[in-house]
């Protein structure tokens, strides 16, 4: 018989409501509360050997310590799988389930990054629970409603998934349709997001094997498109957005201009750790009294173009030298004291737009009239 440890909060452990939310971690023998129904649904192949619990407030106020203590209790029960929840829409309970699951393991064979144990884990909560966002990339989460009204349905789906995760196939390699090849390898084998058990999607796009080669699928898709019947693209188009250009600057002689680049120019040593590919953040660098950008002080960390010309003379990417001249001559009113930089190399449009909104807000705050945007 496979051994399961179940995690619940004080309420579902039957130890009281809000007044008991400060309870420290503890353990009860066998199945308790919703665990009893889960045990019935699991049948004889798997047994809940222990129920560990913690008060919701206690966990959120002492997360590190409570996680460590709960992990010890989980370890003592020597489980093959940890099930946490269902937490439904309860935020504190959901965060506790998420924290414990992340520390205990992940998908079968693939513990979450930084996990201390490596047992398969499963939890259940609503998609809007803050705990769900925290772990949905690394931990299988059964989607629930906001309240415990659908307890039975959630546990039924959880029981099916637990059985799959504990079965031998869950660890066996294979090439069948739908096999997930990512490092979250356990996902395959029938425990995949979007399946009928309603696991939350992890977000993003993930590699999968299908039965037919891409060349064959492409020709099929083309013939379907020609025939004018239904067809399904494998890469849906993102929504298109029309962006109205800002009105032009009429009097450059009184305008303050800022320099922004996606060419990855940073102070040497890259103090902010701007990534060379799939960049997620930007840096703001003070120009100080520099007349130009010296090759000794700046470099490009862009991973998608030949950076030698920029590294030889950074003004080729951020043209500080000629803009200082323009200000001196009076053809330009002034230069913003910072330049902004990130790497435009494979960054998804949404991430780039997030960075741009932050940069634009700070430029607006500093009364900048215009931007010279340079790219690699």
């Amino acid at each position, binding site marked *: 018989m496979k051994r399961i440890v179940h995690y619940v909060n004080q309420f579902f452990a039957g130890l009281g409501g809000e007044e008991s939310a400060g309870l420290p971690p503890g353990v009860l023998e066998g199945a308790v509360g919703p665990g009893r129904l889960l045990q019935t649904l699991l049948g004889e192949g798997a047994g809940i050997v222990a129920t560990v619990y913690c008060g919701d407030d206690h966990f959120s106020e002492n997360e590190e310590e409570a996680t460590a203590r709960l992990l010890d209790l989980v370890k003592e029960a020597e489980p093959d799988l940890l099930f946490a929840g269902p937490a439904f829409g309860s935020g504190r309970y959901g965060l506790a389930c998420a924290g414990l699951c992340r520390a205990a393991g992940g998908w079968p064979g693939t513990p979450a990054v930084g996990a201390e144990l490596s047992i398969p884990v499963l939890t259940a909560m609503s998609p809007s629970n803050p705990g769900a966002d925290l772990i949905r990339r690394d931990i299988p989460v059964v989607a629930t409603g906001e309240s415990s009204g659908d307890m039975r349905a959630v546990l039924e789906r959880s029981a099916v998934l637990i059985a799959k995760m504990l079965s031998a196939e869950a660890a066996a390699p294979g090439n069948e349709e739908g096999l997930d*090849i990512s490092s979250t390898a356990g996902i395959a084998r029938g425990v995949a997001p*979007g399946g009928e058990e309603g696991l939350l999607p992890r977000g993003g796009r993930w590699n999968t094997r299908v039965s037919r080669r*891409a*060349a*064959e699928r*492409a020709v099929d*898709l083309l013939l379907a498109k020609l025939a004018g019947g239904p067809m399904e693209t*494998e890469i849906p188009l993102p929504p*298109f957005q029309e962006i109205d250009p800002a009105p032009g600057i009429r009097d450059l002689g009184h305008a303050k201009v800022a320099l922004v680049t996606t060419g990855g120019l940073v102070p040497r040593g890259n103090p902010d750790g701007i990534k060379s590919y799939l960049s997620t953040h930007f840096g703001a660098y003070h120009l100080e009294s520099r007349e130009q950008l010296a090759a000794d002080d700046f470099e490009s960390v862009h991973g998608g173009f030949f950076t030698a010309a920029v590294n030889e003379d950074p003004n080729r990417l951020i043209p500080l030298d000629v803009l200082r001249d323009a200000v001196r001559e009076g053809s330009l009113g002034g230069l913003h004291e910072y330049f902004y930089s990130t790497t435009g190399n494979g960054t*998804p449009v949404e991430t780039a737009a997030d960075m741009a909104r932050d940069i634009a807000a700070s430029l607006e705050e500093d009364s900048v009239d215009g931007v010279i945007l340079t790219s690699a």
Partner: protein
Amino acid sequence: MDFELAHYPVRSLSWGAHTEYREGELVVNRDALRAELVTEPLIDDVELSIVVPGDRARVLHVVDIVEPRWKAPENGNPFPGSLGPLAQCGIGRTHALDGVAVVTSGSLPRSEEAIIDMCGPGSELSRFGQMPGLVVLPRAREGADPGEFGLALMRAGLRAAVFLAQTTQGVEPARTEAFSLDLGRNASPDLPRVGYLSFAYSHGIGRQKLFYGKSTRDIVPSVVHPNELLDGALVNDGYTKPTKNATHDILNHPMIRELHRRHDQDLAFAGMVLANHCATYDDKAETAWHAARLLRHVVEADAVVITKDGGGQADVDLMLACRACEEAGLRTVLVAKEESGGDGPALVDVAPQADAMVSVGNCPEKVCLDESMEVVIGGDAFLGAIQGEPAGTVEIPVQNIIGAIDPIGGSTLTARPG
């Protein structure tokens, strides 16, 4: 005259006293091959290894992979322009050693990591992990220009491929396969005429395809016969891997083969255009326009499949070509690899007309290669940002396993939301 491939399947690859092919067993005299390869002036010496499926072996710094090919001298040579003198490809009989790979390895300027695993999950992800390989690891003559040495390394791979396939001279093939030259004209007139637009990586030495030995950097879109690509006209000079196609892929071109297979079944394969990935937007737009013009008015296609051969910049070509073709009245399907790092979209450029795309996988997604290796060939550390022991467990973007992401559609990998 049609193009005919004579197939010689390889079941085993080993060293021996005489280089010969007999009933599926390919035996190679290592010294004779080495002597052949050091004729290249910039190559000082060459290390040769054999890897076979199931070996606890990993090859690092893969530059190219070539299928052994041989042609009777009166028919030309297997890699005209790139190795031998100019001769017409795609006519007459060419010998092919099936299911074996010549793998060149080398660490060249700005090269990116490309590996082959012969066991474990890495071998399941690439066809090159599932066939025996002869690994050619040349050492450069002192003072050799790295770019020129890269070309010498490319020629070494081609030369080794010819050396191996020469063994089939006078041997009866296991089977032959004919590819018609008379595309389009011999198919039923009711079938839709499908064309193919193939982009080739073309950014100069070490990052380009050669067309009859000429850099594709400066070509204009050209109508070529698909059989020319199946027969050595297009060769990979590329150490900036990993998601550009190897010569082995092109010689077995999955898209061209698929269109041939269905010719006169549910479509008429009308022909193809070869184009390059230019460096500037204006040139890309011009290329797209010319490609659409040729497909519409010379190839006379009703619809076109478009594949690319590179990363983000290549998405721009894909989208411009899609728009140009759709505007010329051609229905299009695009084949693309994705670079989705998080929740964001998968391509760096999109056109509203690109409503039918096929994904060959998401490049940056990591896979865990947890098989420990006894032999590591080609280097003692991974290139670039990949962390890990070359002989041990490593988490590696799937794109660095050469062959896992196949831009011309030869693999079953795809990406889905999940």
